């Protein structure tokens, strides 16, 4: 990645999570926590319903950065806070999240990128930040 400037906006990405996506992610990741597939177990933990895996949300947010990089190996640091659970209803519509990102800082061969994840008006990730190598 060359000539990266502070303020550069990365192409946004909109993702829809349906129950089948959570089941697929559970299988691929090995995370079978029942809050991601059982309404009963989610309610027992005080959740409003089955919620998307935080790691699935985090993986989707990373795509905004890695889609933009020439080589995903240039991602050197990546962190998020899971501030708001994404409730995924048992219907065909699912839950839609839009990810966007902006370069916040460029220094010493690295760029720091702030990522925003919005489900409707609500931010579902906090302090989502990636550090990438730039040349």
């Amino acid at each position, binding site marked *: 990645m060359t000539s990266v400037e502070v303020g550069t906006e990365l192409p946004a990405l909109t*993702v829809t999570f349906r129950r089948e996506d959570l089941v697929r992610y559970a*299988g691929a990741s090995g995370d079978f926590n029942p809050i991601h597939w059982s309404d009963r177990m989610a309610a027992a933990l005080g959740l409003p319903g089955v919620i998307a895996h935080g790691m699935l949300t985090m993986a989707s947010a990373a795509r905004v950065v890695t889609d933009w990089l020439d080589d995903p190996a240039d991602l050197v640091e990546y962190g998020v806070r899971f501030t708001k659970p994404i409730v995924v209803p048992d219907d065909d519509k699912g839950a839609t999240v839009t990810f966007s990102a902006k370069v916040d800082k460029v220094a010493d061969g690295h760029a720091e990128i702030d990522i925003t994840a919005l489900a409707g008006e609500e931010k579902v990730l906090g302090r989502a930040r990636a550090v990438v190598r730039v040349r």
Partner: protein
Amino acid sequence: MTIDATMVGRSYTAAETYQVGREKIREFAAAIGDTNPAYAGDDAVAPPTFAFVLSAPALDLLLADPELGLRLDRIVHGAQKFNYVRPIKAGDAVGATATITTVRKAGDVEVIMYETVLTSGDGEQLATSTATVTHNRADA
């Protein structure tokens, strides 16, 4: 027993290395809807968040420690960070050691931070995963 701050520093090392396979990378990339060509083919690298999957065998040991008294179905992921040294590739044999770094308690809720170091078979550090989880001991 229940977890408390005296348990900071406890470490859990997965008994076996995780053998990263091309097909597992393909399955994981499909599950996150990522069609990046870097994640396909014989020279596939794993998507960045696959590092969490590799940390899971060490986390399972932490969860199974009877002295901590934790239950997976009472855990919610609060925060996650990765530091990458190099990408994980198909063919890597990855070892994982998780260490409890912080324990904070507020009533029935325990906030636990643990760090997992991922290494290759010959001891090369590949990535570090830092997770914060909330464990709720209250009966709903």
